[in-house]
């Protein structure tokens, strides 16, 4: 898995690429934790390049969302979610827990 991080003035954009499973999910968690630990809680995660995400990846998303939403200080939004991953999010009941955007500009503009 590859992770790219772009820091904007008011938010952070993280682009993940490849496979997110029990082997690689800690990498994603680490990248997201680094942002929240620096006191930044408005994050857009672009999943367009992600081919596969197991429940280990879903856990990383939920844990980050809990941290971001605490005290209403921000949130994690998802961008370009591939259809299969969307189906897994839906099955887990996670769709109402995340705003999902179809393009990065809209996600960043609304954060």
């Amino acid at each position: 898995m590859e992770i790219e991080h772009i820091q904007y003035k008011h938010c952070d954009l993280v682009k993940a690429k490849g496979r997110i499973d029990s082997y690689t999910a800690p990498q994603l968690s680490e990248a997201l934790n680094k942002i929240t630990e620096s006191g930044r809680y408005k994050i857009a995660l672009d999943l367009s390049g992600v081919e596969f995400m197991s429940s280990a990846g879903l856990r990383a998303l939920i844990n980050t969302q809990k941290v971001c939403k605490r005290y209403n200080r921000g949130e994690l939004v998802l961008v370009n979610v591939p259809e299969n991953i969307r189906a897994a999010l839906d099955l887990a009941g996670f769709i109402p827990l995340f705003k999902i955007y179809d393009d990065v500009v809209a996600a960043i503009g609304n954060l």
Partner: protein
Amino acid sequence: MSDHSIKRRFAGRYASLAEIGEFIRREAQKAGFSDFNIYTIEMAVDEACSNIIEHAYQGEDKGEILLSVHTDEKGLTVVLEDYGQPFDPRTIPPPRPDAPLEEQREHGWGLYFMQQWMDEVHFEFTPTGNRLRLVKYRHTPTRDDR
């Protein structure tokens, strides 16, 4: 379609998951499943293998995972065998997809996805380890098929 069986051994470590995924995907593709069903089979097997490493072996590099794939007219059957501690995921409380964010729990999602994505999930404990059988039908049975 003629019956087809294949067996492979993988090291019980998380780094094996990509290779396991590739193997399962290839077999499901050969069996003629749709892209979405291939994804669901791959995810169910990935969850099963992660559980074996975490719970049966209680860590990485403690043992192997033996995967057997059988395809026939009925569908695709994956049998996963390990030589670890007896582990029954049914003892872990199921997750609650309707729970609010703060109450979402970390564990139990692996079995949940296996049960949701596959048509049959059977656990068996043998004297040497665990045996899990996952089945995906080509067609979900309807009343007319019975």
